């Protein structure tokens, strides 16, 4: 008994943090999503109307699906660019490898908003890109083509989230024993076969983790599309945002946030399932 009590207390203390800071707020949100509004007051109830409203209203459902598609594209770009970069860094030796790795994660030390403004000043009308293109005579006058459209959203989000793709891929590549690759070569496999049958399967868990990071981070980002996407930069996060503040429809906002959370959890579950099946 004497020894049990302090341990229980210690456990309770340790459990307070995740319980109080993660589960409790999320739980509150879930509960709130079943409430409803009456005369501008939030009334406790168990209504599914908020969820029904979401699925019945194409504005919200359509924006949600559009956001999922956007995140899929961002993830694809990050994977297509991030994998070769991770591979390239991994194939370097000694100090150079870690120096390059540091370079790829260096953007993470910078504030997200600062990066956004930097990208905007590079791609904007008076930006570096336009100055270079006009200077080289490729463009007659500065163009707005690089900013305030869907391409700008994709490009900017890819730049912001690519370190999250590179890092886990690199880490799994690095754990592949060199003698496995040598054995593959000794047995007559071409470089492509070695990649296809040895490296790729072994690095798959990291690849899936990288894709997951980029997808889930992109899913929650409603600032980037708004800042660089022009009038088309409307995403699901912004829809949720619009229900708070003066609109004061917290229950509906909470229901849509719950849907976003459920989607993210589902994707994480699917990814971890496929990663566990691939383990060799």
């Amino acid at each position: 008994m004497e020894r049990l009590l302090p341990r229980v207390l210690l456990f309770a203390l340790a459990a307070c943090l995740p319980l109080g800071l993660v589960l409790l707020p999320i739980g509150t949100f879930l509960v709130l999503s079943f409430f409803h509004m009456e005369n501008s007051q939030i009334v406790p109830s168990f209504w599914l109307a908020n969820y029904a409203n979401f699925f019945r209203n194409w504005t919200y459902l359509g924006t949600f699906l559009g956001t999922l598609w956007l995140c899929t594209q961002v993830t694809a770009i990050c994977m297509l660019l991030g994998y070769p970069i991770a591979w390239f860094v991994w194939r370097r030796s000694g100090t150079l490898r870690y120096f390059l790795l540091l370079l790829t994660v260096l953007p993470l030390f910078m504030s997200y908003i600062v990066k956004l403004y930097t990208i905007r000043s590079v791609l904007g009308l008076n930006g570096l890109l336009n100055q270079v293109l006009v200077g080289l005579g490729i463009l007659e006058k500065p163009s707005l083509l690089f900013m305030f459209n869907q391409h700008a959203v994709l490009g900017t989000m890819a730049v912001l989230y690519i370190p999250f793709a590179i890092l886990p891929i690199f880490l799994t590549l690095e754990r592949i024993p060199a003698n496995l690759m040598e054995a593959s070569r000794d047995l007559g496999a071409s470089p492509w076969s070695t990649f296809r049958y040895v490296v790729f399967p072994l690095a798959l868990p990291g690849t899936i983790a990288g894709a997951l990071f980029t997808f889930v981070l992109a899913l929650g980002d409603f600032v980037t599309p708004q800042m660089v996407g022009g009038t088309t930069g409307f995403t699901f996060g912004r829809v949720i945002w619009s229900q708070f503040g003066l609109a004061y429809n917290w229950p509906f906002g909470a229901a849509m946030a719950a849907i976003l959370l459920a989607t993210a959890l589902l994707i994480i579950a699917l990814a971890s399932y496929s990663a566990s099946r691939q383990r060799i």
Partner: protein
Amino acid sequence: MKKATSISRRKFALGSAATIASFTAAPAIVRAAAKELRVLTWEGYAEPDWVDPFKAATGADVSIVYTGSVDEMFAKMQGSKGADFDVVAFDTSSFKRYMDSNLIQPIDLSKVANAQNIIPEFKSIDAIKRDDKQYGIPFAWGSLPLIYDATAFPTAPDSWTVMWDPQYAQQMIALDDANNSIVLAALVLGFPEPYNLTDDQFEQVKQKLIEQKKLLLTYYAGFDEGVKLFADNKLKLMFSMGEPQVAALKGKGVNAALSIPKEKAIGWLDCWVISAGAKDVDLANQWINTCLDKKVGNLLSTKKSYGNTTDAEANKSIGMTYGDRLAWLLTPENFEKRVAVWNEVKAS
């Protein structure tokens, strides 16, 4: 909506140091004073320039609490049913909810001698009246004007329809705000009650906004963001967040100017009100009387760059001569509906 104007007002505020000072000083004042006026307001509305004379004249102490948002202000008032404050300043769009919740009381104008100083355009504002009783005294105002590049427009555009002109496609930005966008479109469509729309009018407003959407470079949120976008992309027109954006643009070398088009522009009008829980109504009346002193109106315009309601000359000196051409913010018929319509526009 109010959020937008309040941010621009912060630009002229003294900074949060004053807020902290007032918060920490308040308990001390409470203990020391017998007669005390408790003020809940925006920064810039209770300056030493008129607080000190008020203290000297009444012998009362003044404790000031500054607010950061309309919602915070309402929460503070509702939390105590008004008992924590004697006078409060907020804008016309908030009156409905304060009156509905019985948090404020009618003002007896015969006890406010300086009420005669109020210039004509602010004498009869419907938003602050209910059942023939007046609940607020207009004090400071501003607008959400059309800002344009005066180099591109030698004469000021006199209609908001210029922001629907394909000629200026991708050279315009508009405020990302559900209520303000819908009110503006309703004004452009000539609807008599832009804060009280029918379903049919909502549909027309929506189509009008969708029509404009493809001509805009982007929507913007935030005072500085609008200025930066305008300056960086050499824009021609913007549905602005307030007069101070003109000065900020000039600071960035843009030849900016503002216009109040013939369809009117949205205006915010902050008024002093007396809390339902005021301890000393006479003292509250005296405070309002002090604020309606022409000298205070002058300071408000010349020092803080707000429109004032008592000194027409001071308004003129800062170019704010259009108080009668603004559609003062009102509580809209259904805020949720407005957010939904705005989301439909943005998702279209």
